[in-house]
């Protein structure tokens, strides 16, 4: 896979500092530390992934060709599994918040979550997971071999599901290049990265 790492930066240093949660007083002795911590650290890089034409299945049980699904439209992709603790509930909530923030904008991207646990995550299980979060986008699973080949293509497989990385991928409508966000981002960070990708 041809992959170029153009830039890698700690976005925390570049983002406007987020307002303190729950109205923490500015005089708080830990306010400085607090603000440093408030914008999560994520790493951004650019990649030219070969879009696989692998057949997958969406949460409604409909067969989907990944390349066709994503052709000529802006997309935001993340990788989750329904039994995941800690990371995935937050990634799903972040994507939902991003979707809400982008509602009504031009270039509204297609949102796709790909399961890293095809053994367990059947379409029905993905559907109820999506409903639990109120997430109204495409969730994909498939045969283990197909899903692993897609995950491999996106460099998103770390040998086991519990070892999976918090990765969000973004791509403009006609861009060949993907923007990879590694780490758990705030919604504002995701929105800001998206506006770079979409412009």
């Amino acid at each position, binding site marked *: 896979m041809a992959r170029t790492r153009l830039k890698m930066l700690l976005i925390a240093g570049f983002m406007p500092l987020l307002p303190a949660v729950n109205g923490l007083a500015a005089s708080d002795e830990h306010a400085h530390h607090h603000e440093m911590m408030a914008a999560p650290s994520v790493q951004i890089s650019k990649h030219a992934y070969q879009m696989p034409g692998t057949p997958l299945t969406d949460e409604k049980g409909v067969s989907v060709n990944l390349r066709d699904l994503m052709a000529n439209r802006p997309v935001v992709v993340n990788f989750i599994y329904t039994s995941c603790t800690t990371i995935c*509930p937050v990634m799903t909530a972040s994507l939902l918040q991003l979707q809400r923030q982008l509602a009504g904008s031009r270039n509204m991207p297609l949102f796709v979550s790909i399961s890293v646990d095809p053994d367990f995550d059947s379409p029905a299980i993905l559907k109820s997971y999506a409903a639990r979060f109120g997430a109204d986008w495409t969730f994909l699973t498939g045969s283990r071999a197909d899903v692993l080949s897609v995950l491999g293509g996106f460099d998103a497989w770390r040998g086991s599901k*519990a070892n*999976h990385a918090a990765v969000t991928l973004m791509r403009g409508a006609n861009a060949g290049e993907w923007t990879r966000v590694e780490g758990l981002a705030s919604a504002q960070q995701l929105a800001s990265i998206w506006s770079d990708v979409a412009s």
Partner: protein
Amino acid sequence: MSRANHHSLAAYSSALLAWAMTAPAPAGDPGLLLYRNGQSTGASALTALVQGDVPITGAGAACTNCHRRSGLGTAEGSVRPLPITAPILFTPRTGARPRPGYTDASLKRAVTEGIDAGGRMLDPLMPRYKLTPRDQQAITDYLKSLGTSAAPGVTDDEIVIATVIAADAPAAERIAVERVLHKYFEIKNGGSRQEVRRAAAANRHAYGDRHDRSYRRWRLATWTLTGPPSGWDKQLRQQYVAEPAFAVLSGTTGHDWDVVHHFCETEQIPCVLPLTDTPPDAEQDFYSLYYTEGVRLEARIIAHHLQDQRLPPDTRVLVVRPDEVRGTAAYNAFSSAWLKQGGQSPRQLLLAPGKVLDVRFWQRTLEKERPDILIAWVGSGQLVGLAAAMEGGTRPDTMIYTSESFTDWTAAGATATQLAHAWHVSPYRLAQGSQTPFPREQVWLRSQGLADLDVRIAGRVLFACHALGEQLAGIENNFSRDYFMEGLEHMLDNTNMTTLYPRTTLGQGQRYLSRGAYVLSPSAAFEGTSTGASWVEM
């Protein structure tokens, strides 16, 4: 609390014990509902902000999502949530990032503002909750009780592990469970590394706490069941009271495992990998872990294999099966999958116990029922007559299915090779090249003088022991049953240990270790080879 148990409890200050040593929260406790389900005490949903600005609500905001039931948490990716059991939260922390023990006020700051008792910001992944005063009180009370009750069956130097054996379970299973467990426990307790002496000296050694204190001798309690299943719950309860165990390991009943399953769930006892072909719907529950879904998995794989052949809707399916729980469970699972695929209701022939199926039975059955598909859930000896009836019979195109929970082809080579138009479903590993399918298990059994046991039974008992040992080592001194189960989910998904199954996987709430089976010809099943076999996952 009888004898000292949790190391962390030992460090617990007595003043704290006075107000925090409460019984575990009952099921309807508002703090428990908030912790596990994200259910607020009020009318509106529980809400929080995570990662600075991402709103989460309800079940998505439940504490258990990260800290798990145990409060000790498991790692996910590179994230390791902090442990929040009462003995840890309310005790000062020394070493790196020291902090005083939490008070009600500092706990409130941590949960609502993300500031720990030492004044440091917690990771943005820790949600900043919006709590009503009642929510705050409920979660504070709950956290004061979390991890304070000692798990039964654990003393300073011993951990009791029970197994369950019903008197009328198949002899091969009863004998394998008893002999493998006794041998494994004997080796485990061999003390070849002076573990007992080092554990006893742990408090005099600078790092003894870390290395040696968690060592316990294993003691096996065999809970015996007699009579019909209706009396088993009482028998289990009596034996549990007489000899409390930390966990149930392997075991066999020869009937449904339901009674044991429900007993373990009610008493919150981990129940690890018993021998059963009919496990209950375990993924609604927490404490019971099974190898596969048994006959239900095999039945659904037959339906799946038929679906791939795109048969006409009027395809006639006949199921021949024993009139007992395994047969019923298999039929129901097949029937529901088959109907969902648009098939017609499958016919079934119920066999009374002891019924012998000769060539005449099969000839008559084939002529009368004229099945396109015959699912023969019977022993291999009962299929000798079927092979003869098929040869030169009037229904040569009938496709036959058998499955591993009912038919063992390894001892019936002649019949296996005669049945040409047939498929067998097996969840077990197959041989690669000239190797046997289960070399490691066979080496162990041979080396322990147990080579006469059926490797597919004994190998499952053996792996349950390996899993227990690995996980007890993994939980170190945290003898919490919830943490034990959470760790099993995690450990068994990444294990290097081989099982009888080609691939095992587990995750939070997942309770079947293997989710697929091979579909292969009976002759390949007889030889144990992968020739022409396809692996199907459900």
